[in-house]
């Protein structure tokens, strides 16, 4: 979908939704601006939509993720308000300025290249690049992005203006204002509906929460910012499910998790089908009380005192907005996005020993988190293939390289040196520079072993481990876990070790401060239960949580974070929401007044 619009001083506006773009009447002196969001291209060719940096750049973008082979052109038809001369601006970046990156692409108007080669400026910042004047001889213009390398060139937007002195702003606030003026946000968001429970985040936790609530009869919405469900267990990330469901204190839990489980293909399996994306969607779609909203990134929230009233999501490619109202909300975003937007108390990073009394806690509180993985896999082919040189990537030698045909969990970046949320793009790109640099080395220098191997898949969606933890009425600690405390509200049974990753020592030696490979120590635990009070916010009265962003310390999170465990948290949230609805009470009210009823549900009584 393409939006174009003209601005004039009195901003008299008129909408024409039939042709799906906003249009403002034009006076003779007005400037003509056309703003094209790359992610809204009608035909995306081989380019992919990336929304992972939405909180930083306020938009999704298109990326040429071809693993070193140029991807097919993305194209769209743009309607200009009038023929004439326009200056073209392109919003892009050089994602690997070492010294210049490989993400090169060109722009074509009606089959002719316009402007320079983009993506090789040596500047990592997202910004507008002046691409010179273009002649628009026809109101309808065919616009294409031509990828030159297959190495993650990216384009956020194109901007055409007949005002020669107008420079589109780079400052996020101003840019957002311009977008708002020229695009979607001047329209009211669509009505996404009113629900008993709005679940934000369609990973394993969120999907299980939504299914659980729907089966309890709650009118439920599930909002996910990707085209697939499953999050880290989707084919976009390919992490396998961990944590046991056969040691449950309450055997009723884990049933929905079992439905989600597509068998164990391990981590980073080259076969996408192993992760069962389609099956997961079918299961959700089969629920009559459940409405699924894929490709919808929630970025705005309305509150009344300590209650969330509504959230607004934007489609990651069409940019169409939808508003969802509800009685209860569940933050299953992993990043704790909803809690953050609502002003929920949260914690990110490590607590100190003095604060928590945990033997495994850090001496001093800090911002250290576990990292993010971009897994990858190669497959054997019949013929020898090459791989491009990657001078912009990390450099390896016989002395140090990772001699692997397929990745596992250790491929991980972001141990306090990057922020999981605001540096998500940097982290992913760091992972890509490690993967491609290493692969290029293996192909060239270990041809005997790797000559016939070909990259089959590299994740462009980062598999995050740790972000914000929303604080609930109870904060789960190492002592709770290791002493196996059974609180009256103990709900989900967790079995995974306390598994806190850190940079691999050898990797640190060679890439100090730039680590991309992890180690871990597994601290064994006996099966223990997670109190229900970890699953709702202590200060936002209608907010549940499930997944990695529940109320735990950093240390305890090391054990609760695995996906089968997270899925069961979702199941509990669904049950608790049904009790809350029945008694018109809050998540806390369920704990305080109706705990026996919730526990009876968990017991299957």
């Amino acid at each position: 979908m393409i939006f174009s619009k003209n601005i004039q001083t009195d901003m008299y506006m008129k909408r024409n939704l039939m042709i799906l773009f906003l249009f403002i009447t034009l006076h003779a002196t007005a400037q003509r601006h056309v703003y094209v969001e790359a992610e809204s291209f009608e035909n995306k060719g081989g380019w992919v939509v990336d929304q992972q940096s939405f909180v930083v750049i306020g938009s999704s973008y298109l990326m040429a993720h071809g693993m070193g082979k140029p991807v097919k052109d993305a194209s769209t038809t743009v309607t200009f308000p009038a023929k004439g001369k326009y200056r073209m601006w392109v919003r892009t970046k050089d994602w690997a300025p070492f010294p210049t990156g490989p993400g090169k692409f060109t722009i074509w108007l009606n089959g002719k290249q316009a402007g320079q080669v983009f993506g090789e400026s040596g500047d990592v910042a997202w910004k507008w690049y002046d691409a010179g004047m273009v002649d628009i001889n026809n109101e309808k213009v065919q616009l294409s992005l031509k990828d030159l390398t297959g190495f993650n060139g990216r384009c956020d937007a194109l901007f055409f203006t007949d005002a020669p002195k107008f420079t589109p702003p780079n400052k996020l606030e101003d840019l957002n204002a311009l977008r708002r003026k020229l695009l979607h946000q001047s329209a009211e968001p669509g009505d996404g509906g009113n629900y008993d429970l709005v679940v934000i985040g369609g990973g394993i936790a969120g999907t299980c929460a939504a299914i659980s609530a729907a089966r309890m009869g709650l009118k439920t919405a599930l909002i996910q910012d990707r085209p697939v469900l499953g999050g880290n267990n989707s084919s976009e990330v390919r992490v396998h499910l961990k944590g046991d469901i056969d040691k449950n204190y309450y055997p009723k839990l884990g049933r929905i998790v079992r439905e989600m489980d597509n068998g164990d293909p391990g981590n980073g399996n080259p076969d996408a089908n192993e992760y069962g994306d389609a099956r997961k969607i079918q299961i959700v779609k089969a629920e009559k009380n459940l409405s699924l909203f894929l490709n919808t990134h929630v970025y705005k929230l309305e509150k009344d005192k300590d209650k969330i009233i509504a959230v607004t999501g934007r489609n990651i490619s069409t940019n169409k907005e939808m508003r969802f109202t509800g009685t209860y909300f569940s933050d299953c975003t992993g990043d704790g996005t909803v809690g953050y937007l609502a002003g929920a108390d949260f914690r990110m990073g490590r607590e100190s020993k003095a604060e928590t009394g945990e033997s495994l806690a850090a001496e001093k509180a800090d911002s250290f988190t576990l990292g993010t993985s971009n897994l990858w896999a190669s497959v054997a082919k019949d013929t020898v293939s090459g791989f491009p040189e990657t001078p912009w990537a990390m450099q390896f030698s016989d002395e140090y390289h990772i001699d692997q045909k397929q990745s596992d969990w250790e491929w991980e970046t972001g141990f306090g040196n990057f922020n999981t949320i605001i540096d998500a793009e940097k982290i992913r790109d760091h992972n890509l520079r490690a993967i491609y640099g290493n692969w290029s080395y293996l192909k060239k220098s270990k041809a005997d072993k790797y000559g016939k191997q070909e990259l089959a898949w590299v994740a462009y969606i980062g598999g995050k481990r740790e972000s914000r933890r929303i604080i609930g009425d109870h904060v789960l600690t190492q002592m709770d876990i290791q002493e196996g405390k059974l609180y009256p509200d103990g709900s989900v049974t967790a079995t995974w070790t306390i598994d806190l990753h850190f940079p691999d020592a050898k990797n640190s030696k060679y890439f100090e401060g730039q680590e991309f490979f992890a180690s871990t120590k597994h601290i064994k635990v006996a099966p223990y239960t997670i109190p229900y009070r970890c699953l709702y916010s202590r200060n936002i009265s209608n907010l549940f949580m499930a997944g990695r962003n529940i109320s735990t310390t950093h240390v305890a999170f090391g054990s609760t974070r695995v996906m089968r465990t997270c899925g069961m948290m979702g199941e509990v949230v669904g049950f608790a929401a049904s009790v809350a609805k029945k008694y018109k009470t809050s998540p806390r009210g369920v704990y305080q007044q109706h705990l026996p009823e919730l526990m009876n549900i968990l017991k299957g009584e």
Partner: protein
Amino acid sequence: MQRILTGILLFLSSVAYGQTERVYLTAEKDTLKLALNSEGRPLYYFRNIYTPVCNTGECKPVYINFYWDLLGNYTRFTMPANEVLTKTDHREFQEKDYAKLQEILAKETSIFSELKMEDLVVKGTEKISDSVDMKTGATLKTIKNEVIEGAVFTCYTLWHLAHGKITTEISGITETLTDTTLLHEFLQSNNHHYQYQAMDKVINTAGHVTAAYEEDITRIIEGKNIFTARYALQKADADFFADKQPWLWETANKAVYPLQMAIYKKMAGLVLTDKVALKVAQSLTGNQEQVKSKLAILAAQPKLSQAVKDQLGPRLNDLFQKHSN
């Protein structure tokens, strides 16, 4: 092929005039041999191993030849004539099993280094235990990739033989053989273990490079291995670079990006000749980081020649403003 080669060497040792191997006895009274070249220079170490591989009381003999470099790093193995390795069910190793064994043994760190046999397998069997992933963090699949199924004990025993005490004994012997020729050989080799070891001997802790080895150190800095290059670059003191500044600047311009940035950083710690400083001032191009690093080199100079100042022009102020705080 390797087997034949060893055979020839053994043969030579008995008939040739020059000594082709020297025999040592290890602390455990095993025979360790050092192979020598025709001039009697040390080449590598090897052992003709006989070891029992045991699984819950049942043992089988294994014959195998192991080779180590001069610092005790395992390099390869060969099978003695008429000897084979077998799996639990007495099936003989296939070619791919031998290849996999080499891969397993070549790993400096392995799951075998952190695990005991009883952690790895189900008691009384060679079946890999399902709970092993809990102990290593690796997936079961990864672990299965790291061992040969049906020969877990063989892999385990042999890995520990290849990476055990022998490695320190070997480096100890080589220490006694070290002379200037060996140091040159080490520095000029493609073996980074040799290079690091020799660098630590020819560059003292203050960074002074022994004159005779300066040429070797420059070759390492401009060499293919960026890790040894960076090590030499960072370790050597300013005196070492005093008469090599133009070369260092050229090397930076040719280097891969991370090394280039490391060289720029090094140059900011050197008092540059006017000529080299001018070259830096003439090349304030590249991405932001490159320009910043080059400006930092100039800003760190105690004084700049008029030619450099002229070359910088308005950027001169830029330089001092940027680096005055």
